[in-house]
């Protein structure tokens, strides 16, 4: 069983494809994470090399399109441990069959891949709604999120357009921060913990929102299963309206 290990970059993944085609071999697993090596595994460390990466990406654009390349990279935002492998396998098929295979929905690799994409998409869309800002002293808006996938820079443009105010969104899982002056945004990894002092008004607004949340609920039609379908429980602790509700109404 051949396993390719690479450096987790997009270029690295493209180099895995290069290796595979030049050695005429198909690895069974392509990954950048550490794993338990097993006896029957033949692990190859793939070096990243800009020239080879470029050749592969040109090939993908030729047989598919720029959009295909972007779609493939998009799936790398997934936290699924096999996402890199899925992207590799689909890209391999595109190169081999010289066409865009990403719509070949009866193929199980493609299916796995499209699932990853739709999960990322769903989460991105959810966070357009589920991101909650608090006003910090000085007026800057601050939000912390805990996404499964690496989406913080995907939601940032929406808030730049919408708010036109200074804001920070902090992905606390990856310690990745988006900061915006209301016109553009930048992404960085903070080296020291972020400290935010909330404005005194914040508590009152939160209380009003909680009140509203309770008031729009139609108790006779309670259906928590449905609620959690749309808003899975993992989001609750960071939402103003649900974070303090440890009361029995939130038990299924």
């Amino acid at each position, binding site marked *: 069983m051949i396993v390719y290990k690479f450096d987790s970059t997009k270029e690295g993944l493209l180099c895995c494809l290069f290796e595979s085609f030049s050695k005429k071999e198909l690895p069974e697993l392509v990954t950048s994470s550490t794993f338990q090596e097993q006896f029957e595994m033949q692990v190859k460390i793939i070096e990243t090399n800009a020239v080879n990466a470029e050749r592969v990406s040109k090939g993908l654009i030729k047989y598919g399109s720029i959009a295909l390349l972007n779609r493939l990279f998009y799936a790398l935002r997934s936290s699924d441990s096999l996402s890199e492998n899925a992207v590799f396998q689909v890209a391999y098929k595109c190169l081999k069959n010289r066409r865009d*295979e990403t*719509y*070949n*929905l*009866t*193929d*199980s690799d493609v*299916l796995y891949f499209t699932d990853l994409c739709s999960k990322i998409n769903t989460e991105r*869309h959810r966070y*357009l*709604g*589920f*991101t*909650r*800002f*608090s*006003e910090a002293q000085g007026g800057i*808006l601050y*939000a912390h999120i805990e996404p499964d996938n690496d989406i913080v820079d995907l939601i940032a443009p*929406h*808030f730049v*357009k*919408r*708010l*036109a*105010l200074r804001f920070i969104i902090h992905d606390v899982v990856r310690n990745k921060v988006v900061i915006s002056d209301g016109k553009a945004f930048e992404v960085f990894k903070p080296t020291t913990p972020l400290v935010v002092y909330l404005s*005194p*008004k914040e508590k*009152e*607004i939160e*209380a*009003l*929102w909680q*009140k*509203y*949340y309770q*008031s*729009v*609920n*139609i*108790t*006779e*039609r*309670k*259906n*928590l*299963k*449905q*609620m959690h*379908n*749309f*808003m899975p429980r993992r989001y609750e602790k960071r*939402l*103003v*309206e*649900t974070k303090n509700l440890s009361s029995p*109404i*939130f038990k299924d």
Partner: protein
Amino acid sequence: MKQMFEKGENMIDQNTLKILTDSAKYDVSCSSSGSERKRDFGIGNCHMAGICHSFTQDGRCISLLKILMSNKCVYDCLYCVNRRSNDVPRASANPKDLCELIMDFYKRNYIEGVFLSSAVDKSPNETMERLLDTVIMLRKVYGFNGYIHLKGIPSADRLMVMRAASFVDRMSFNIELPSEKSLKLLAPQKSKNAIIRPMRELSSEYLIAKEEKRKHFLPAGQTTQMIVGASDESDGKVLKLTESLYSFYKLKRVYFSSYVPTNYDTNLLPKTSVGLLKEHRLYQADWLLRFYGFSASELISEDEDLDPMLDPKCAWALKHPELFPVEVNTAPPEVLVRVPGIGIKGANKIIMARRYTKLTLEDLVKMRIVTKRAIHFITANGKFFGKEHLPTVRLLLSLNDKALEPKQMSMFSDQETTLSLITGEL
């Protein structure tokens, strides 16, 4: 400390908020989609695909702050909690406080915008004027570009209505009840004309605005809402009315709201609610009108009710055995979407995948197309896997209808947000 206190004075207090939002929640038009508003100055924009910011414990999407300016009413509609003769706590808010609240919620990304409505406080014109003041203040003073859905007040001055329409994204005059007779009986101060006239005027003004490229005139169009289960109109009649509202007044959506008894001191209204199944079937039929190219008369005749045991597409397909089965590898898109269980999303998947290979039933399952209902109406690569005996098919379809599982009922209380309907899968 002093500063905080002063801030607090300008804010709507919790009790007022509760009173003003308590009854607005039954208004079902939660959606904020369909408007694309760009920012020239100030804050906010509108997003084409609706965004849900939270979900209630009954599983409905929260996208807008739904609030009344006032629940003090001079009218006496029999079905309404806020009618004059009811003894309920009353409150009203002033435009400035409301604007502050909306801005504070919007900035924190709690909401996509506001659904502003009001009871008839003093008179229709005075009420409409306060609503108008508020939306103008929001747009002009606060620079708010988020979504505004404004409820129109029947019998209010035409010019005020038109002016309001050039500031908001969507307006709705509610039909309230499916016939003039019921309206007379249950909402004596409202007349059919007072509701239909502004609807008609807005829709013709909308066309003119489009010609003149005034893109700020109701970019998300008009909607309306009617209560079902409070009066005795058949589903066929309701659907026919719905269809004509779409074609004559170009409404974007017609909402149905299941009657919930709140006033028990009258014999003109049922004492119990009809339940959500009726509403749900109507929404399914409405979906078929809007997205699948069905006409009301194809689905049901005017004096009939929809079959509660079957979704309307299944019911239609059973009435037309001569059209089925269809071959998934060759059927055109408009035929595929008419197959029970295959929605627009499913049809798209099929169309994409059949370019690569001849699809078998296994392939469909792999692609996660729900085939339970579809198998009786399709062949896959020439093979038929369903049942031919119609009564058996009928029974099987009914057994696989999620709406009939008791636990599922409230999931359909707001169609805009149930995923199955976002994708149009019926």
